[in-house]
């Protein structure tokens, strides 16, 4: 295979991103204005965090539809805990709750002995409903606002809108999380164990790879990252409602897969997920800038996602075709 072909196949999403950016920049030069770049950076916000967590679940050969429920629950609980526990306390509590939600998923999957993605799909679908209902019951259906609080939560405000130099705080959080997760996945034994679990659970187990630990880890990470996403999300909009997480699970899964992490498990990386999320965000941004109507946008987004998944799949099929 020649080099160009290789790049085409392996970095297709990247090429699509560049192509998209180029076309938009030509038609709407404001696309490359600092303001818009800043915008794109901000819109990375919650979705990327959730998608990074989801990457591990998918690499580990499972799937997690419960992140939407987790986000709902964490958002309303965290914001209401700011008054009693203080900001740091609430933040920690939120992250702990998210991790617990993930651990519960893992527990259900482990105790039932479920090993397939499909089993996980619907178990976590059910759990999403449960977490969402808890969020609704806890909040009574109300939205909570920062100005409801005794004093403005400046730490959360900073998470939502602050900057560190040219970078938004949420982007810095993302970079930090990305670095840690990337190191964890590619450089650490536990990360390798997760990949092996996704590659072939039986073989991994018989080789003494602790797949139970991998399962607990992937779901706990997903829960933790969903919680982090929830915190960035409600900080960004300064309110938390019990339905704030709707749609995040599908968008996160799509972003992961569009990035090129295979749903079959074993193969993938957090860097690819960054590309996937970038594509999704750019797409929204470009279509908005190009003035495409919202309805057309959804159709166009669906079409491009289908196209990206298809293209990405082509390379695998070709790789295997004999």
């Amino acid at each position, binding site marked *: *295979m020649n080099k160009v072909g290789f790049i085409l196949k392996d970095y297709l999403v990247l090429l699509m991103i560049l192509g998209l950016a180029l076309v938009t920049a030509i038609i709407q030069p404001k696309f490359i204005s600092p303001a818009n770049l800043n915008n794109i950076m901000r819109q990375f916000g919650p979705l990327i965090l959730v998608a990074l967590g989801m990457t591990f679940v998918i690499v580990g050969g499972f799937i997690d539809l419960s992140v939407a429920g987790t986000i709902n629950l964490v958002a309303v609980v965290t914001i209401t805990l700011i008054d009693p526990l203080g900001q740091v306390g609430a933040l920690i509590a939120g992250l702990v709750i998210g991790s617990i939600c993930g651990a519960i998923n893992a527990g259900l999957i482990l105790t039932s002995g479920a090993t397939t993605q499909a089993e996980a799909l619907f178990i976590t679908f059910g759990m999403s409903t449960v977490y969402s209902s808890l969020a609704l019951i806890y909040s009574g259906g109300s939205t909570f606002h920062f100005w409801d609080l005794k004093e403005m939560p400046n730490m959360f405000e900073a998470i939502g809108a602050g900057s560190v130099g040219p970078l938004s705080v949420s982007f810095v959080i993302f970079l930090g999380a990305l670095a840690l997760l990337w190191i964890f996945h590619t*450089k*650490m*034994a*536990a990360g*390798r*164990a997760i*990949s*092996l679990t996704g*590659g*072939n659970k*039986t*073989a*991994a*187990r*018989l*080789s*003494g*790879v*602790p797949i*139970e630990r991998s399962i607990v880890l992937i779901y706990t990470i997903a829960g933790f990252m969903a919680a982090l996403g929830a915190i960035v999300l409600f900080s960004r909009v300064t309110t938390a409602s019990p339905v704030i997480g709707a749609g995040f699970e599908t968008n996160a899964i799509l972003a992961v897969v569009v990035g090129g992490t295979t749903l*079959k498990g*074993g*193969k993938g990386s957090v860097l690819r997920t960054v590309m996937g999320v970038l594509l999704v965000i750019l797409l929204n941004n470009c279509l908005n800038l190009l003035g495409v109507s919202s309805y057309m946008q959804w159709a166009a987004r669906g079409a491009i996602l289908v196209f990206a998944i298809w293209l990405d799949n082509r390379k695998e099929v070709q*790789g295997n075709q*004999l």
Partner: protein
Amino acid sequence: MDTAGSQIILSIRDVTKSFPGVRALNGVSIDVRRGMVHGVVGENGAGKSTLMKILSGVYKKDTGTIVFDGKTIDHTTPYESMHRGLAIIYQELNLVNSMSVGENIFLGRFKEMKGMRGTHAKARELLDSIGCKVSTTKLVSELSVSTKQMVEISKALSFQSKLIIMDEPSTSLTGEEMSLLVKIIHQLKAQGISIIYISHKLEEIFDFCDVVTVMRDGNVIDTKPRGEFTRDELITKMVGRTIENEYPERSRQVGETLMEVKGINTRKLHDVSFTLRKGEILGLVGLVGAGRTETVRAIFGADRVRGHKVTIGGKPVTIHNPKQAKDAGLGLIPEDRKLQGLVLPFSVEQNISMASIDRFTRFGFLIKSLEKGIGARHVKSLGIKTPNTKVAIKNLSGGNQQKCIVGRWMEIGPSIFIMDEPTKGIDVGAKYEIYLLMKEIAEKGGAVILISSELPEVLNMSNRVLTIYDGRITGEFDPEHIPADVIMRAALGLGGAS
């Protein structure tokens, strides 16, 4: 025997086939004659299975011509080739586990069989004709490996085939079933049906093949009537060098007790207890499904079994999962390579290193250079044929894949190495190397538990054998001094313990 006279049914001319990084077939030409059993032998990775898959339409050839039954076949599909009269029993079992035996035999021919009733009736006839008693309504997932193999054979027979390809059909057959198979082969021959028979078991080749083709590295080295080959010549041609012995000298430094297993009880096993000594190779002999695999899986913590006691070096150990087993110094080569051994999308290197991740981990971090060393070392010492250690293991031949799994455990250096069918589908040369490895482990003060369906292998390698029949240990023998038929009687549950 007249080998030249009969008409050519299949003519393969200059067929080549490349996979990324490997040239699997390199201008192969073979003629197969009507009513002949055509043996094909060759080392692992010689290209045998690849050639057969091209014939059946699973793979597409790159160049060359194939003429079957007077018609040139260019691009065929499994469906077409079957209906042309070319049936194949693949090396890896090819049955749908979630379906019944009958439905499996007539897979895709529901209409021809006139519904479910017809399917089961015809299947019964077929199975009876080869002496297989299994119920046609049983799910394939509930069958033992050898019964599956018999079902697979009936499936191939169910076509009105002119040529049947059998890619290592005998790897998991018991002796009795094997003789049935031989009988069937003779019947087919008598009906003018040709058979291509691939096997690593040379006895079989000399037993009933009429013509033998030797392949090595994607080339046909020689095709001759069986009678013109001597055993040594065949082996030399296969491996490209001469091999003195098929089995190494038995090791003789059996020491004190290393492991003691007491009272494994499951639905299938009944009070299985035995001891294993240092420096010993312990063979487990039994029919397929007797409970050998279940015994070792229980010890290894692979199944949920409770209540038995294991002591290693005098100390009791608890093993509830394979990780604990590994930590206690056990290693296992599982019987099903593809499903239980390999992580197919991963590289050779990562497959080799996966049991010993701790070895190249410091403070939770992987040291990639060490990992690379581990991979390279075993590829070299086991002679694994691979372009480099980074290629995906799914691209290796069966035998080479198996060597990777051996390498995986060699890195750990387990003191107790359980090998469940370690040489299944492995060529003579590689087998010998695996035998040497077993011996080496034993001589270093470890011990090996060997399960194999090849009786000569167990008998020649083991210091001691246990026979298992229907979940019970029925005897303990010294294979050096007890004749094989006595041991077989015990394995068949006919009494005669020592």
